[in-house]
């Protein structure tokens, strides 16, 4: 990095929070999507909103690309650094500034960990609803940038549905405040537009979140089925009945194997699929609904039905489900997590197609999904040490995504496009629509410095590992100071 840039940065934050040593750069090279790595020139670690604003303004002035990062858990490469740019680590902006039980809101900084919001709200009988599986470590800033979902968004919606106000520094350096902390607003929904901007507009500095009363009662049932088909039919029956569960999840046999190994989850033996349904609400309502649910489930002929008898059993069911992604690390050295959506009723068809495509390519695929809203997470398992395995896995991933689009679904339900699915954006949007999004992007980020290279298609192939010397450096035509 040019020494003048480092020198300017050091006027904004102390040198010990500008990380440039090899060990420091190596640590931030990648996020939750390890197929991509890129070494930034530096990582800067602000501790206040003011420092963050100053850093972004400096980047705007000097045209330095930057990537904001919370805990680096993105599954789409959303916080992949940019070579010749900096990473702005927001994890130390982690203050919960205010919890207001009267307005049921929380005002937080972007580095606050998702579950910490609920923990802080809990003494007031409130909770923060969006629950991505990485919630023990992922940050609110990252949740907003990618409009994170989670198992409970069937009933409660995604992150965007719980954001009431945002103060942000845009890539132009302008600091804006949108929303007032009211659940209603006037004029265009700026907070809505900023949610899911994939880091391309700027950095959120202070966020007002909506808190909901803790559900009075849960009724969580785990049901094992002999086939994925049967589990899918059970879901259709639940939906048709008019019940609105808080969550409906399915895990297939491979995913169950992983979860069992990871957290010693206890599943009914001999099942090809497990269905998790959770009702929530006032106890009087849940009492009535649980009878309805149990009748529906019994009629679907499960191998075994296990209602959780207490809070500990309920948490164990969720622990198994939420560990599933990372747990497949026990089954395979490497994997790709996907995030496609198909219309809910075509889930069975989609799974059959995936199974067929997988066996044709000789690749194992585990399936975990939000059955209630058609959001699939195929986990494509491969061994990166085998030549060509990564490429084959990516090809299968691409075919699955195309299938989702063909079925009228989406290439991403909640993980966002990031780095991973850029080339598929034209499958979802026409050139004119992509141009509109580019113009919107340019309004926020005319210099293209904010998380550049994400979301929009680029010329490079997805598996390029941007790591080590730049080709120009290798050729001896350029060097860095």
């Amino acid at each position: 990095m040019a020494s003048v840039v480092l020198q300017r940065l050091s006027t904004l934050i102390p040198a010990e929070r500008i990380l440039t040593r090899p060990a420091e750069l190596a640590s931030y090279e990648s996020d939750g999507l390890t197929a991509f790595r890129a070494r930034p020139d530096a990582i800067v670690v602000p501790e206040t909103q003011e420092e963050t604003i100053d850093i972004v303004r400096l980047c705007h002035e000097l045209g330095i690309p930057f990537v904001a990062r919370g805990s680096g858990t993105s599954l789409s490469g959303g916080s992949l650094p940019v070579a010749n740019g900096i990473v702005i680590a927001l994890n130390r902006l982690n203050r919960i500034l205010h919890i207001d039980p009267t307005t049921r809101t929380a005002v937080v900084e972007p580095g606050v960990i998702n579950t910490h919001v609920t923990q802080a709200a809990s003494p007031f009988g409130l909770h923060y609803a969006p629950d991505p599986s990485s919630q023990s470590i992922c940050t609110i800033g990252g949740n907003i940038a990618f409009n994170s979902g989670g198992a409970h968004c069937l009933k409660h919606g995604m992150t965007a549905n719980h954001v009431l106000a945002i103060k942000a520094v845009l890539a132009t350096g302008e600091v804006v405040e949108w929303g007032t902390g009211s659940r209603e607003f006037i004029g265009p929904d700026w907070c809505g537009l900023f949610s899911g901007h994939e880091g391309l507009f700027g950095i959120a500095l202070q966020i007002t979140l909506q808190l909901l009363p803790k559900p009075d009662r849960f009724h969580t049932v785990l049901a094992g089925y002999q086939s994925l088909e049967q589990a899918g039919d059970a879901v259709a029956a639940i939906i048709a009945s008019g019940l609105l569960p808080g969550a409906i999840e399915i895990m297939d046999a491979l995913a169950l194997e992983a979860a069992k190994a990871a957290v010693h989850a206890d599943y009914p033996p001999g099942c090809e699929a497990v269905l998790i349904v959770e009702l929530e609400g006032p106890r009087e309502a849940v009492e009535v609904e649980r009878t309805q649910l149990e009748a529906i489930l019994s009629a679907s002929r499960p191998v075994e039905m296990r209602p959780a008898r207490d809070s500990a059993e309920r948490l164990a069911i969720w622990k198994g489900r939420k560990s599933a992604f990372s747990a497949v690390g026990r089954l395979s050295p490497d994997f790709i997590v996907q995030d496609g959506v198909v219309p809910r009723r075509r889930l069975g068809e989609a799974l059959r197609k995936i199974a067929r495509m997988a066996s044709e390519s000789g690749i194992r695929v585990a399936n975990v999904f939000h059955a209630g809203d058609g959001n699939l997470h195929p986990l494509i398992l491969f061994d990166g040490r085998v030549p060509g395995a990564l490429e084959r896995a990516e090809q299968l991933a691409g075919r699955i995504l195309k299938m989702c689009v063909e079925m009228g679904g989406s290439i991403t339900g909640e993980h966002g496009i990031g780095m991973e699915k850029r080339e598929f954006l034209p499958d979802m949007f026409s050139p004119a629509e992509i141009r509109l999004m580019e113009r919107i992007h340019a309004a926020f980020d005319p210099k293209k410095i904010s998380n550049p290279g994400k979301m929009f298609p680029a010329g490079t192939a997805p598996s390029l590992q941007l790591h080590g010397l730049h080709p120009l450096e290798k050729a001896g035509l350029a060097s860095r100071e």
Partner: protein
Amino acid sequence: MSPTLTPSSVTELRDAILASARVSIEGARTKPALIASAGSSIGLRQLSGITEYDPEEFTFTALAGTPLREVIAALDSRNQRLPFDPMLVESGGTLGGAFASGLSGPGRHRHGGIRDFILGIRFMDGEGRLLRLGGKVVKNAAGFDVPKFFVGSLGCFGALVDLTFKVFPRPPAQLTLRFPTQHVEESVELITRLASSRWDCDALEIPTGARHVLARLAGPNRALNLMASDMGRALKREFTVEDPSIWAAMAEFAWSPPGHALAKVPLVPTSAVECAKVIGSLPTMQVHFSAACNVAFLSWADPTIHAALQTSLAQLGLEAMMLRGDPGGWCMGRRRVTQIEAAVKHAFDPLNRFPTLSR
């Protein structure tokens, strides 16, 4: 004044847009204060009809000019609903109009407002291009969330053609309870208490006068009476059961006399009491608190209070969107101006074909 043009197809819409340097879009004119005065007006009432409805998928798509009553009837026949209680339904309001004005009703308290149920839109831009943003499935994170951005955008970025919404199952039963109160402080306190309670109220309103609170419960029939009794016991309050027809009347703002101005004011609940005292005390002013005091609807007759109202709103840090009446603009009160809004407006509408949200 009737609109100049009422296209009945996408092609006709394109011709209408390209025919004038400036255009403004309208639906059923149920919110006349929000219809821009400059430019040729284009009415979308003939772009009407539900084009797709898939109850199993919890989604439907309808053209922007479709009357809300038609949408609601179709959903109702399949035991589904738009949980946010669209407003101005019997008055003939359109889906596009509700969306472009961002107007949600009492039901927004429980599951969210109109912005929480939009999945995708198709709109025509100032150059006659038909663009689709968002999608048709209930979960979709691809691309920028332009559909949400259009909520409340008052037709400034383009002309809505069709909208895809998520729906929910209609609860099996509803029960509305009326709790008498002595004054606005007590009403607001009761609302606050109920909003954080375990009973998961479907709607929480303080009608004008603030002498009572309405709490609507929704769920399985058997559960509702039990919940109501428990509420009365826990709150140590008397209540009466209210006729469900009040909600239909409320959706039409029946409490605001004809000819009165009407405005929506987003509120942080802790400002409700001050709002009632400062604004509510203006001559002829009526205040209805909606969505657990997250919105105040204001209704007044006397145009000479405009200056005082403007001052009070600004002092309280509030902003009002006019629905009916003409104080000399579509909004009142405090307004934050940003540089980004001009840049984004330009990104959507470089030719400035559509109105600008000027204050």
